[in-house]
Every structure is written in structure tokens, then in C-alpha cells.
């Protein structure tokens, strides 16, 4: 009796089909959390060189730190904010995070209350506020607002948000809402501009000591946006950003698809060649 044999390419076709089904189901209903905005800590007075002047917006019972921003990808679900304390905290501090359509509205799209543990916090630290993903966050303007409940806190504890000396984020702006009497709550981190070029060319006007005018402050706090959106939409935004401003065929998604297909084919044939006819190691 002749044995039934499955031909090798059936395995290949089966594997391709299985992979396609998994891929399609993931594209259709999965989540994609690859993208997040990068951190530019050096712009906030935290680089090794400390070339730039930064500010610290202190979180007091009456103050609010606001930052408007534009979300780029779908599925915005987490925002990390660079907090700073002057030394170790003495006790836990409650923070309230609001996400709104704009800094002027009162309606919270998302609200997160959290408590910062005194034992975990010292110096500078990104603190993440996680919430239910916003699926329609592509190119959408938002504002997050941060305030701290420090009523139970003694005066020794200071918790603040790192902010830049000048406008470094072109798609949004930070605001520090505080009663007029408390404008001194802003502290300034002075740069150490030790390079002669910096002293004389760029930084001299910046490091001049002037009274801080809160209304004219053009600044941004250091934050990161994290996305966990649907794969198809996320890939669409990625391709748009990849091709933006590029000349000739470099602005065509098909060109990149072509490159990827050629590259993967090359890899496949290379591995196949090596596996099938592994040269003898004499």
C-alpha cells in the first residue's frame, strides 16, 4: 500500500497561510505600542553639560502645570512627565492628572489620581500616567493638567515639573497657573555655560538674571507620549511620516514596500543558501 506523503511545499503554503491569518487578525483587532515621543532631557537643563537654562514649576495646592500638545499616533494611553524633587520626599504626595481637549476647557477626557511614594522618589524621574487608550488621537490637540494635593504636606517637600528655558516644542506650550503672589514658585536652573563659544555667542542673553514674568514665559515641560493604537492606523501614520518632505520616489510608500520586499527576499535566499548548502568548515 502506497503511503500518503505530504509534499514539502504544502508545509510552506500552510505556514504562509497560518502566518497570514495571524497577521490579518492582529492588524484587524490587535494593538501596536511601538511608538512614543522621545525625551529631550538635555533641553531641560538635564544634559551632562547643563548648557541650557531650565525651570522647575513647583506643584503647590494652588498651582497647576498645563501643557498643550499634538498627539501623532492613534491609541494615546500613557503620558510620562518629568518630575523633580529637591532631595528625598518626606511623605507620599497625591497627584491628579487631567487630560482635556484644550487647556481652556473644564471637561476631563481622562482623569488619573495617583500617589507618589516618598521612598521611591529622589531627584528627577519620569512619572507615567496611564489611562484608557484614545483611539481617535491621530493629529489631535490635547492638554494635560497636573496638580498636587500638598495640603497634608509640610513645607520641606518640594515637588516640581521640569520645563525648558525657551520654546522647544513647536506644537504646544506649557502654562503655569498660579495666583499672582506665588510667582516665586518658579525656580530657575542656571546653565553652566563653560564653553567660550556659548558664553559669547548664544547664551549670554539667556543667562542674564531677570525677574521671571509668568505671562510671557514661552516654555514646555518635559513629557513623553505613549501610544497603543490599532496596527493598520498606526502603520498608516508611520508611512506618512516616513515619506514626508522627501524627494522623488523617496516620498512614495510603494518604494519602501519594494525595498522591504527585495530585502526580505534577499535575506530568505541567503539563509536558504547557507542552510541548504552549508559550506563545510574544514
Amino acid at each position, binding site marked *: 500500500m502506497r503511503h500518503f506523503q505530504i509534499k514539502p511545499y504544502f508545509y510552506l503554503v500552510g505556514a504562509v497561510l497560518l502566518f497570514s491569518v495571524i497577521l490579518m487578525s492582529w492588524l484587524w483587532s490587535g494593538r501596536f505600542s511601538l511608538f512614543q515621543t522621545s525625551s529631550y532631557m538635555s533641553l531641560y537643563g538635564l544634559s551632562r553639560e547643563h548648557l541650557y537654562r531650565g525651570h522647575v514649576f513647583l506643584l503647590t495646592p494652588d498651582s497647576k502645570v498645563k501643557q498643550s500638545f499634538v498627539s501623532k499616533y492613534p491609541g494615546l494611553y500613557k503620558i510620562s512627565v518629568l518630575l523633580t524633587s529637591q532631595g528625598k520626599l518626606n511623605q507620599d504626595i497625591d497627584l491628579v492628572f487631567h487630560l482635556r481637549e484644550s487647556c481652556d476647557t473644564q471637561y476631563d477626557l481622562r482623569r488619573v489620581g495617583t500617589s507618589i511614594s516618598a521612598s521611591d522618589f529622589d531627584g528627577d524621574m519620569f512619572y507615567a500616567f496611564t489611562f484608557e487608550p484614545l483611539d481617535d488621537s491621530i493629529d489631535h490637540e490635547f492638554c494635560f493638567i497636573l496638580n498636587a494635593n500638598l495640603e497634608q504636606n509640610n513645607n520641606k517637600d518640594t515637588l516640581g515639573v521640569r520645563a525648558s528655558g525657551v520654546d522647544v516644542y513647536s506644537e504646544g506650550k506649557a502654562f503655569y497657573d498660579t495666583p499672582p503672589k506665588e510667582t516665586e514658585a518658579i525656580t530657575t536652573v542656571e546653565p553652566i555655560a563653560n564653553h567660550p563659544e556659548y558664553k559669547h555667542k548664544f547664551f549670554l542673553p539667556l543667562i542674564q538674571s531677570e525677574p521671571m514674568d509668568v505671562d510671557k514665559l514661552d516654555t514646555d515641560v518635559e513629557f513623553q507620549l505613549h501610544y497603543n493604537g490599532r496596527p493598520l492606523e498606526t502603520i498608516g501614520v508611520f508611512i506618512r511620516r516616513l515619506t514626508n518632505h522627501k524627494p522623488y520616489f523617496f516620498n512614495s510608500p510603494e518604494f519602501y514596500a519594494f*525595498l522591504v520586499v527585495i530585502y526580505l527576499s534577499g535575506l530568505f535566499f541567503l539563509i536558504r543558501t547557507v*542552510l541548504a548548502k552549508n559550506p563545510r568548515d574544514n
Partner: protein
Amino acid sequence: MLFVKKWALATRQLRSPILESSLILLVGLTLVRGLIYLSIFPPFLAPDEPAHFEAIRLIGQEKKWPTHEVYLTTPMHPQMDLIFRQYRIWTLVGLYSPRENLNFTSNLFIYYYPPQVAGIAIQGDSYLMLYHATVAPIAAMLASFDLVSQIYFLRFVSVLFATTTVVVAWSTIRFVFPEQKIFALAVTSFIVFWPMHSHITASINSDALAELIASLFFLVLVLTYRKGITIFRGIVLISLLGLATFTKPTVFFLYPTLVAVLIIYIGRRLRWANIVMGTLIAILVAMTWIGSLFLFENSNGGRSLLSLFSSPLRYPNWSTYVSLDALNFYIKSLNFAVVSFGGLFGWSNIHIPWMWVRILAVVLLCVMLGVLAFIYQNLWPGGTNRDNLSRYQKDILLIFLLAILFSAIGLVAPLMVNQSPSWGIHSRYYFPVIIPIALFCFLGVRQLIPTPFHTFLLPGWLIGWILYEIAIFWVVLIPFLFS
């Protein structure tokens, strides 16, 4: 042309269908990878790329030699700031934009870029300019194109240099190990799939040319050592040395390497005892070390060679090289070297996660131990496996090893002299010894794998590099560049 013909004749006897098909695939992959890397990295987001581009543009399009005076009087490319803004370059590198943040309005490159990066413009009177002069005619032809297109074209020239290096590396290793086909594939796949190599060789930078010149030197050297010296080969070697002198200080190691070759070659001919040859090589290494310290002390890291003759000689300050502070600095530099090998992209500001760095350091340490074991067993007098290699192969491996050592001296000497992180050991600085490094890395890994598993070595090596690259792309590059 004569050299190419002779080379083609020599390689004919080394042909192997599997290797040739693999080489064609590797060459194709190098080109495709080059296109991917040059297009995903925003214009100017590569090490010193704005400075190299501006120097090339001044020579090619403005017909001016890029001296300090020329930078002070010639406006930079009118689209440069626009491109920096469109691609968020200043933000991506974590620096203030001179125009947007600092209200700086000058259109002079020397005030736009160098002060922000605490660096210098590339000036023809204090910098080795062979690369810039070589590609300047291409820049001249591209003058009517928009700036981004010009950058992509010039980046592609570097990709072509790298592709040629792949072919040269393949040929070199085939000459050394004609029977052991695995080595040629392993070395070329190292060169093709090393992410940092792909990034730098898809940017406007003199490193791709420096690497090509050094690789050609190794090829001709191997050929000469195997077939004997001729006037033609001698001229080619000397010419390559001359080109190296005007390309980059990272290629200066070829000089002591050539002296080492002569010592080994003459020593074999005259049947010198190992102790005599070893002593001569040790003296050469010591002289190279001391000479490098003098060179870097007096010539701004080897870039301002002319200043050697115009200013009084400064002596190395030996006591500062061995202090506790210096030791601490060297350890930090070693850490930087591991990061730079694993992945330090852009303006050295896009790096692999720190956990990877620790794992990579352990892996590299293991590979280094494997290399030491290989050297002890195969090259050291009295080694247990000395009969596995021919005299020719052992000599070439010894020369490669010395080349790596001389290159390392050239990288460490400026660190010792300056004690400054700005002279960190960037991986691109040892691209010129990429063939010997790739070969010894593979030999080190092979040494660690038990012989029965050697069948899986090449597939594992290849798949390992591919997986590493996938991780680099999806964890490091894409999230940073497109978020």
C-alpha cells in the same frame, strides 16, 4: 585596469558556485540596506554630516577651498536651516535651534552649526580632505537639485564605497582561506549586517572611503604575500598608503602594519628565530605607541599634520596617563566603546538600551576570550593546533592581529592625550580594520562552540546578526525617528 585584470585572473581559481551566489546576494543586500538606511535617517542626522556636506559643497559648488576665512564670508546652503526645521533635527539631537530658540540670524555655517555642537567646521587647512575633494565633483553636478536630493545622492556614494568594501573583504578572505569557505561568508555578513556600519556608510562621512582604502590595502597585501612582491604591487601599496595619509587619521595604522609585514616577510625568508622576530615586533609596537602619543599631542588628533612642522614640539605628559582619574576615564571610555559598537546612531544621541549594553559587554568579553584561546592554540609558538593552518595563513593572521593592535593604539592615544570624552572610541574609527576584526570575531565565536556544532555556526552567525538588526530597527531607530 591592469590590477583589476590580474585580480580577476587570481580569483578565477577560487570560484565556488555557492559562494558566488552568496556574494551576489550580499552585495545586493548591501545596496538595498544602504538605500533603507539613507532614506530613513533624516538629512544631516549622521555624525558630523552637516560639516562634511558643507565642506564638500564649498569645494564642489562654490569652487572655494574651505578655509576659516571662506566660512566667514560664504553663506551656508540657503535650504540648510529649512531642512533642519522640516526634519526637527535640532529637537531630535536634543539641542536648541539657533534660529527658532536662540534668535540667531546669521547665514554663516560657522556660526550656525559648530557652536551648537561645540565642534568645528571642516577646514581645509587643518583637516584631511581627500574624501571631500573626491566627492566634490559629484556635488558640483548636483548643484541644481534640492538639498535633500543632494544629501541622498552623496550618501549613496558612501553606500557604493561600502559595497566595494564587501567585495574586497570577500576576495581578501578567499585568498587567505581558499579551502575554508565559511570564513568569507562570515566576514562579509559581519560587514553587511552590522547596524552601525550600515548607518555610517549610508551617510556623508569620510569613514566609508577610509575603510575602502584600508581594505584594498589588505587585499593587495594578502595577494603580495601569497604571490610575491612585484613593482606593480609595490606601487599600488605605496599609493594606497599615500591616499590613506590624506583621508583620515584612523588609517594611519597602515604604516606600522606595513613595517610589521616587512619584518615578518624578511624574517621568514632569512629564517630568523621566533625570539628575534618577536623582539622586533615588540619594539615596533612600543614605538608606534610612543609615536602616536607624540603625534596626537602635536597635531590635534592627527588631523592637523602640517602643524607638526610649524609649532614647537610638545612632549607627552606621562604622569597624567596613569592617574586614578585617568583610569576612571578609561573605564568610561570602554563603556562608550561598547555602546558605539552596539548602536550609537545619529549625532551619537540615539543609543541601544542600557540593558543591551551590559549583555553586549559580556558577549564581547566572551568573544575576546575565544580570540585569545584561538591565538594561543593556533598562532602562539607551541600551540596545540598550529598544524591546522599553513605558514601563509598564520602570517596573515598575525599581520591582521597587529593591524588591529596598531589601530587600537591610534584610537587610545588621543584619549590618553586629551582625557576628553569628545575623543571617545567610536566604532566608525575602526572601520578600516573591519576585515581583521570581523575575521577574529568569527574565529573567537568558533573557538567557543564545540566542534560537533560547527555545522550550525554560520547559519547561527547570520541569523544572529539579522535578529539583532531587527531589534535595533524596531526598538531603537523607528520609535525614535518617527515618534
